[in-house]
């Protein structure tokens, strides 16, 4: 049963955030008997709150607090961004952990290798997939093949692709783990209405509560991490829903606020001992912010597709997830189906007049896909904080600086050609591509893992180089972005980190 802990209880691990990273690390710790207090800035919805209406869900779930610069699209709700994600869960490949060794220096980037290898993370990919019910893995069947997927598959075969799959999606292809199979309702980008898609809201969080080792505090916005004279983290100061400040003591702390809030919390925790922000002796905190290369292609096909029938992302192509200099860029990308409702298609097409309206007249014949690809780290792609502007919590407003690297531009152009060819090979009447269509939904870097403390903020366990009992548990620790959607890797790293923390606590090293 759910527990409550005293603010003075310094035996607990405080986890900040309840999404893919925070929700998972919380549950994994609680399952091992570690007491956890999870601070979540947002509210706790139920499945009954999920409606097939993106505007309504946007109001309910989005992080609305002010941010400047490059837009991001994150959630402030229990479950975090696992309430608004595609469910696509491909694994990184070996070369992607060795980005610097494989690609070379890449002008203008800050590329390094991960301090861990694919072999080390493989067992945790297995655990993450089993936990999330990833289709086509660990005995679960592949996902249902929607028409949109069948079109992409047929075109992909025609242009010579081989790794085309309707697996690798964390949406139940059969009923399992107390949740139903996908009914192909669609609209699930804004929350799965029946809980078939994995979200920590109705998996990790209630499972953690059942252990009797977990307390979730909602409406709890972490403001600052304090430390003792030795530089060990001591407590988290947070504001409750009424704006009243509390201080929760902690034995260890895991920060998983998604990159913007993770950076802000560590930055805001500066002190005499850590004048540039907690764990920032390297100067790398907030830097190496990565977003993924994205492009969306829509095509008017010769016959009906009705891509609104079913999940937005129902299959993928993995052939381009490789490093091959002859393509004119380093790293790879993944191609995935995409679908949307008429208004969003009109906004995507843009403009006005016959051309725009004509595209929409063919709504039932539209097929679509997008790419997500590796975006290299750059020192000046970073999150800083406004000198004077403060938000309702009194915190400095984040400013996101992002400029696309030439490698990303070249990859995007290649992706556009490939995606358009898929549909043209089947006689598409019209194709239309738009770059950066999903900008700001995949956020990585800012507290990257590094072998050497001067190159990054965290070590191979996501533990701060500078603060031994402070961990980062979200995509902020990604050393490089790799091509795949980040959630599976965030979950795998969180499981691995929880094991590390629990073992270290058992050995009294933490």
């Amino acid at each position, binding site marked *: 049963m759910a527990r409550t802990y005293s603010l003075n209880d310094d035996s607990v691990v405080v986890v900040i955030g309840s999404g893919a990273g925070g929700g998972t690390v919380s549950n994994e710790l609680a399952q091992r008997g570690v007491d956890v207090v999870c601070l979540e800035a947002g509210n706790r919805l139920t499945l009954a709150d999920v*409606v*097939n*209406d*993106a*505007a*309504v869900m*946007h*109001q309910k779930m989005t992080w609305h607090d002010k941010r400047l610069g490059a837009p991001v699209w994150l959630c402030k709700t229990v479950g975090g961004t696992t309430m608004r994600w595609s469910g696509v869960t491909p694994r990184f490949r070996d070369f992607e952990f060795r980005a610097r060794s494989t690609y070379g220096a890449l002008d203008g980037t800050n590329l390094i290798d991960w301090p861990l290898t694919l072999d080390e993370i493989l067992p945790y990919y297995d655990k993450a997939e089993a936990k999330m019910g990833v289709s086509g893995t660990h005995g679960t069947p592949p996902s*249902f*093949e*929607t*028409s949109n997927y*069948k*079109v992409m598959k*047929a075109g992909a*075969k025609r242009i010579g692709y081989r790794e085309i799959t309707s697996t690798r999606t964390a949406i139940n292809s059969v009923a399992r783990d107390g949740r139903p199979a*996908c*009914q*192909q*309702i*669609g*609209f699930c980008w804004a929350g799965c*209405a*029946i809980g078939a898609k994995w979200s920590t809201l109705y998996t990790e969080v209630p499972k953690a509560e059942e252990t009797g080792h977990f307390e979730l505090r909602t409406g709890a916005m972490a403001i600052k991490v304090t430390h003792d004279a030795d530089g060990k983290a001591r407590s988290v100061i947070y504001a409750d829903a009424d704006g009243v400040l509390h201080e929760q003591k902690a034995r260890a702390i895991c920060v998983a606020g998604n990159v913007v809030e993770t950076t802000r919390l560590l930055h805001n925790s500066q002190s005499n001992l850590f004048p540039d922000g907690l764990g920032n002796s390297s100067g790398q905190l907030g830097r190496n912010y990565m977003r993924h290369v994205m492009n969306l292609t829509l095509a008017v*096909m*010769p*016959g*009906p*597709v*009705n891509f*609104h*029938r*079913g999940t937005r992302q129902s299959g993928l192509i993995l052939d381009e997830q490789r490093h091959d200099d002859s393509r004119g860029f380093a790293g790879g990308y993944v191609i995935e189906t995409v679908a949307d*409702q*008429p*208004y*969003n*298609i*009109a*906004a995507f097409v843009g403009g*006005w*007049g*016959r051309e*725009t*309206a004509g595209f*929409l*007249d063919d*709504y*039932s014949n539209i097929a679509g896909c997008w790419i997500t690809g590796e975006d290299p780290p750059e020192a000046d792609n970073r999150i800083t904080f406004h000198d004077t502007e403060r938000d309702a919590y009194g915190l400095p407003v984040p400013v996101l600086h992002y400029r696309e690297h030439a490698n990303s531009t070249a990859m995007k152009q290649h992706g556009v050609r490939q995606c358009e060819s898929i549909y043209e090979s*089947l006689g598409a009447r019209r194709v239309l591509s738009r770059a950066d269509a999903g900008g700001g939904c995949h956020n990585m870097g800012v507290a990257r893992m590094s072998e050497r403390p001067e190159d990054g903020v965290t070590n191979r366990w996501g533990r701060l180089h500078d603060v031994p009992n402070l961990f980062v548990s979200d995509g902020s620790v990604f050393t490089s972005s790799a091509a795949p959607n980040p959630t599976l890797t965030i979950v795998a790293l969180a499981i691995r980190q929880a094991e590390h923390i629990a073992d270290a606590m058992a050995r009294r090293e933490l």
Partner: protein
Amino acid sequence: MDQQQLTRRRFIVSVIALSAAAGSTLRPGLFSVSQAWAESASPLDDPVHKAMVRMARLLFPHDALSDDVYAEILDQALSDTASSNENAANLEAAAAALDRQSGDSWQALDEAAQIEAMRSIEAEPYFLAIQNQVRVGIYNGAAFWKHVGYPGPSKGFGGYLHRGAGDIDWLPEDK
């Protein structure tokens, strides 16, 4: 315009603005209040109203949709909300600018010339605001959805798993 009209107009446009800001969908059902508006007089002069219905059609021209569909979107924008005055002002500004561009009556021009006049003002804030409202109104509207065979949210009828999610009959056979 009396206070009651103003209040009514404020409500609806704030809903439109909200949805536009979200870059996302609106439930057409939210607009049922527009029936009340339809019974009262438009704050626009008749020629201005007619010109703006024409402009709305040229923004997103769907031959399958009647003028009533476009007129209703404008009427909704003119009903009830904090920004209804602003919407009326935008529409009046657009109508005046189009007439100015045309030397006399924009409505009297042929379609190509009408579109050319619209292109000359397409970067104006009032034009962009109207364009956004018509886009939301058309593509989140029941008439367009019916036209393209899109039934809207499917949770209520249980999704498409057994209702055609994988149905497609024109793809070439796998080689």
